[in-house]
């Protein structure tokens, strides 16, 4: 029997999703035996043309990481969708926009101005910025278009499953591959990770009081972080209650608060709003009745950069989506 064909592709990403696949170590060799990898630019000698030559739906599953930032990435997403029976959005950027999605607080012009004109080491008296077409001696050089807006994969093509995380941990990758290979497919749209919130699997969960009241928001550098104690109970913003588990609590185990890369739990669309509501509800909870209004406002204001904090990995996927153009 022919082995199922599998493709891996990267869009606006950092290569961390490729590193995490290599971190499968010996398991990767097993995967390479069980499937026929037909496209993986980082590792294999197959071209866009080779993908174009496949029948529609011939690829069993395409794992696509990275957000959609450039024209070329959008084209590749459409091509792989057409050729694949299943498409898995792999990692935070593909799933929700990820860190590159923070660029939706700006537009193309602002980004180009900063990067190519304003940075202090730039020497650019002519105001040169990258061009789609540049005539040079003997011909022309071209670049793919940089869009104003970062999109998630499912805002670009239809997506069957999601593998969350920045990056997805190797054990979830293996589970996803085994699930797909075994043919026992979950409901379309499933996020291939546990359904509990991170808070429920947190190693310092027992230290979390039934009722947390935050009298003052603390930045991580303002306190000596106690590795045995719930971050929220220390006044430090942690996305744990609003974030899906499955990461192995790696940041918490390094004594740093969660930043939400796994996205919301099932049934929640807006991770940022859910986290914001959660934190706001804890502010001065035990002194709510007696807290003067101006102090309540000060408390709220002590959350610096709420949009960048609560939507750190999910801005393009949120209802806010981007700054108004």
């Amino acid at each position, binding site marked *: 029997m022919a082995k199922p064909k599998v493709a891996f592709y990267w869009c606006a990403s950092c290569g961390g999703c490729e590193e995490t696949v290599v971190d499968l170590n010996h398991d990767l060799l097993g995967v390479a035996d069980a499937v026929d990898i037909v496209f993986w630019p980082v590792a294999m000698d197959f071209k866009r043309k080779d993908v174009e030559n496949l029948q529609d739906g011939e690829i069993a599953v395409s794992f696509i990481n990275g957000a959609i930032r450039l024209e070329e990435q959008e084209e590749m997403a459409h091509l792989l969708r057409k050729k694949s029976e299943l498409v898995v959005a792999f990692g935070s950027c593909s799933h929700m926009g990820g860190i590159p999605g923070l660029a939706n607080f700006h537009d193309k012009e602002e980004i180009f101005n900063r990067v190519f004109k304003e940075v202090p080491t730039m020497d*650019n008296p002519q105001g040169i910025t990258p061009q789609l077409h*540049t005539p040079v001696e003997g011909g022309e050089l071209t670049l793919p278009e940089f869009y104003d807006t970062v999109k998630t994969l499912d805002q670009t093509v239809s997506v069957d499953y999601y593998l969350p995380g920045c*990056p997805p941990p190797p054990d979830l990758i293996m589970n996803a591959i085994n699930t797909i290979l075994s043919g026992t497919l979950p409901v379309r749209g499933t996020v291939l990770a546990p359904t509990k919130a991170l808070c429920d699997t947190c190693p310092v969960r027992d230290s979390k009081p039934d009722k947390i009241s935050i009298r003052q928001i603390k930045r991580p550098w303002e306190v000596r972080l106690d590795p045995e104690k719930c971050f929220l109970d220390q006044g430090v913003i942690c996305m744990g209650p609003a974030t899906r588990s499955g990461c192995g609590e790696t940041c918490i185990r390094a004594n740093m608060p969660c930043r939400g890369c796994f996205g919301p739990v099932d049934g929640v669309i807006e991770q940022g709003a859910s986290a914001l509501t959660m934190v706001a509800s804890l502010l001065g909870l035990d002194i709510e009745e007696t807290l003067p209004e101006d102090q309540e406002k000060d408390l709220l204001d002590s959350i610096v950069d709420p949009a960048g904090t609560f939507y750190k990995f999910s801005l393009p996927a949120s209802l806010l989506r981007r700054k108004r153009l």
Partner: protein
Amino acid sequence: MKKITIDPITRLEGHGKIEIFLDQSGEVNQAYLQIPELRGFEKFCEGRPAEELPRITSRICGVCPTAHHLAGTKALDDLFKVQPTFAAAKIRELMNSAFIAEDHILHFAFLGAPDFVVGPQVPAADRNILGVIDKVGKEVGSQIIEMRKQLRQVLKIIGGKPVCPTCGLPGGVSKGISEEERKTIQSAGEYGVEICSVLLKLFEDVVLKNQEYVDLVTGDIYKHQTYYMGTVDNNNLVNLYDGDLRVIDPLGNQYARFRPQAYQDYIREHPEPWSYMRFCYLKDVGWKGFVDGIDSGVYRVAPLARLNVAEGMATPKAQAEYEKMYNTLGGKPAHNTLAFHWARLIEAMYACERVVELSSDPEITSEELVNLPTNNPQEGVGVVEAPRGTLIHHYQTDNKGLITNVNLIVATQNNGAAINMSVEKAAKSLIKDGEVPEGLLNMIEMAFRAYDPCHACATHSLPGQMPLEINVYNNKQDLVKKLRHGRE
């Protein structure tokens, strides 16, 4: 006029492209390496709390997130004018050392070795990691995988996860090292030293005893006389975590030596309309185009550059290898681009020796992990040596510690101009009369592969060949010839 396109070069984050233009007589007129990739971190970091930047900027590159995390963390130290505790500084350097060792070895084994250990001229189907394992034996192959695995475990112990770490704070780190973890780290370092010895011996046997390879390394195709920059300690020895930046001219004389905070006095960036990359050069020498020599501000960074600017290595085994390399290459500075591979192995040895030294230090298990900042944040610069060269993070904030300005000089950017020149020189040397001989593709690849370009997520190359395609167009843009290599 003909145009040759090499697209895509997947080891440049899947988005690299080489364009070569031939003149009427079929000689190479110009060649360009384009980086059509941009995400705009300098802009969207604005407004974020400064302490988040080590965790945000590590997403610039998932191959070298540790370097970005640490450059960012050091920028926070400078921003808040707080010194890390002794233990924290050592833990950070330990982390950087383990990272550089695993990354260098991955590059050597998966990217460099196929060209040398297997050979630049052998059929492409054998020129990959499997070919390397065939040649060196399964035992060495599995030792390399084991070494990487153990060193990645060190990164997990210290930083939570290898991609992307999370432990950096102004004035320290969030998590300490237990005695049990210390032993694991020490043993990973010792194993690393052992495997680096094996690989350096292999390099000697396979490359240095083969005249054909020695000619390639020392020949003119892969040579550029440029300035070099890297970090040195007080004794002018290579340091990958902290020190002064030192620049030497193409003759080997010190051109500058400065604290990282002064980087703006020395470095400038030049834009080109045909690339999303910005090209660095030495400010006072000036931008003279994509040319080498003492009058051109083009400089190089990364392993060979670091060894060139230093007077030696701070650990014994690496020092012995350092001496051997310069004896073989005929003194310093070495301008041979392919010697970056050799320097990379020597640095990996140094990094493993440092892992052993630091993990044997009684202070490494100290619980004095952080000095809490007391000053108002304003402006800070942090520099580390990433595997692929000097990495500079520069932050400014408002009085709440929210970022107002960010400037980033990323390792490969420093080498950007030189990589272009190397590709062009290789193309000019190899393409004659419009002919594109067999073996050309890999020879051009070798010109930039030596630099291990930072978007080289290619370091995770698996069995297979770096896919390159050359399309030859006539002056009407019709495709007249198509060549590709790799597995058929």
